[in-house]
């Protein structure tokens, strides 16, 4: 009789199996989840006692050593010695197609402090390792013909960090920009800084103005560095500019359209103002008030690596993922 009922109502049996089994699986997973504490997040040093227990071993980190050998603060040129720009630009890795390369890549360089904590190092070492990873990325973008690279160096939300850390970062920016100025000119890199400069140290403000002026006619990679920047700040400052025009009678409120806002955004300084690809490192699945308006149709890629570990292989992985996506912009396939 039971067999007859199974045969007669197979869809019911299938429904039961297809609903109960995953629910049981979900419950088992929940119990597994509850046994995990928040400290099991990878960024907590107590999660991996092997990393935490032997700081001496960590100081011989092969990645740090390799990066230190490749680049130092005096700065090596981005294209590498001996190769012509055309030869370098033709050296796109296998698996990537030149015609599908993004024009504008944006990067949230997250995870410097967690990287340092995992190795028992001070935060400053994390930021310095991050600078080295940044240089690798700039080199790759120059080689592979990416037109605009935006990096988020300091968010307007980061002022709440300890003063010592903020001062260290400002100092690092200043030293880094000074060290790279010759390289920017040699590699034909145009540099723009976006964000509110008013809270930055005066010496850094002067240096920013100098580097922007000196590189303004360069025609290679456009490097946009966001310092004291946030997506909401950019939209608000654009709206304030528009509101000023309304107040001055230059424009009526009903004449304001999306183009009016786009023209006033600070990213309008770039030939390709909107990123095609945004990469965020360290596994955080959010945009954290970095670009907002500009991200309307941007492909997002979240890498689990912390920023100092983000190298060529990770960048290729992000580009491969980008090139496989179908961008429809809400319309046809």
């Amino acid at each position, binding site marked *: 009789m039971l067999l007859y009922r199974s045969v007669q109502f197979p869809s019911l049996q299938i429904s039961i199996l297809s609903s109960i089994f995953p*629910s049981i699986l*979900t419950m088992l997973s929940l119990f597994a989840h509850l046994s995990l504490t928040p400290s099991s997040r990878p960024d907590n040093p107590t999660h991996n006692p092997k990393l935490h227990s032997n700081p001496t071993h960590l100081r011989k980190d092969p990645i740090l050593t390799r990066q230190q050998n490749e680049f130092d603060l005096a700065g090596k040129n981005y294209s590498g010695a001996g190769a012509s720009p055309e030869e370098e630009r033709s050296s796109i890795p296998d698996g990537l197609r030149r015609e599908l390369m993004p024009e504008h890549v944006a990067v949230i360089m997250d995870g410097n402090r967690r990287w340092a904590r995992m190795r028992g190092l001070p935060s400053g070492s994390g930021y310095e390792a991050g600078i080295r990873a940044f240089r690798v990325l700039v080199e790759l973008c120059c080689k592979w013909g990416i037109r605009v690279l935006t990096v988020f160096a300091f968010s307007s939300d980061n002022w709440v960090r300890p003063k010592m850390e903020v001062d260290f970062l400002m100092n690092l920016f200043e030293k880094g920009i000074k060290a790279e100025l010759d390289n920017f000119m040699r590699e034909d890199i145009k540099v723009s800084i976006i964000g509110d400069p008013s809270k930055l140290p005066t010496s850094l403000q002067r240096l920013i103005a100098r580097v922007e002026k000196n590189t303004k006619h360069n025609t290679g990679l456009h490097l946009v560095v966001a310092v004291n920047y946030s997506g*909401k700040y950019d939209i608000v400052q654009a709206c304030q500019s*528009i*509101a000023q025009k309304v107040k001055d009678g230059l424009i009526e*409120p009903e004449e304001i359209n999306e183009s009016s806002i786009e023209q006033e955004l600070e990213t309008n300084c770039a030939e390709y103002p909107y990123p095609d690809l945004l990469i965020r490192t360290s596994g955080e699945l959010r945009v*954290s008030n970095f670009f907002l308006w500009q991200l309307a149709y941007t492909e997002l890629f979240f890498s689990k690596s912390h920023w100092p570990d983000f190298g060529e292989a990770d960048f290729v992985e992000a580009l491969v993922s980008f090139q496989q996506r179908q961008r429809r912009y*809400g319309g046809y396939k």
Partner: protein
Amino acid sequence: MESQSSSSSQTTWFTYFVAFLRKCIFMVLSRGPIPSHIAFIMDGNRRFSKKNKLMEGAGHRVGFSALMSMLRYCYEFRVKYVTIFAFSIDNFNRRPEEVQSVMDLMLEKIEGLTKQESLVNQYGVKVRFVGNLQLLSRPVRLAAERAMVATADNSKAVLTICVAYTSTDEILHSVQESCEEKKEELSALEATGSGPYGLLGPNSNDKEHKECFINSKDIEKHMYVTPDPDIIVRTSGETRLSNFLLWQSSSTLLYSPLVLWPEIQFWHLVWAVIDFQRNYLYLMGKLKQQ
């Protein structure tokens, strides 16, 4: 006849049993924080139709059933705000037949929302339609307005349906409203003889004047969708926002399961909540820093 009634009783006990399992899972999850606002980008309906060789538009119908199930699960989890991205302004660029088919489906389903036995009334959900509603055809717009009126007294939860919506259009609308408001304030001050210096002082420079004129709180006041979502779920594996809740998503967890929208199941929601809970302490720490 007897076999049909025993089949329906089996279906009933099975439905109760599955609902009981969901309740158990909710009790377990409730030990941690439950998100108060979840947003959905319901992507993959057309791919579902193609994959299952269905007629055009069938994927959207199955997608609607999936939506109803997902809303039920959210309200069982006591998620107070649910926002769905039903139709983008960019979607008007699709083939006219497809657009019409989606509009017809929306009209049919919106009218279903206002029925007494509908899910929204069962869970006390207030329905809001937001977006540039003037772009909709008159029947759809009127149906949406009727649904909003019919559910205005519901207060247990809020369902925000973004239709003819893009985030850039929302921000633009908010900026226009803010500019109008400020212009009226300034005109009122000038009429009383205080002038713009009533707000600023005679020695203000242009920058101070600009800062007083408009700020992020003014823009947020006029946004369609509040509060900010805790999770944005986008199905079909695409990892982009497609002009949805750009302003509101700055601290939102983005969850992109590979499943197509019509195939989304209860455990996808469970995993989204688990992910939210795993990131919650870290995010709260960061928000406190700000």
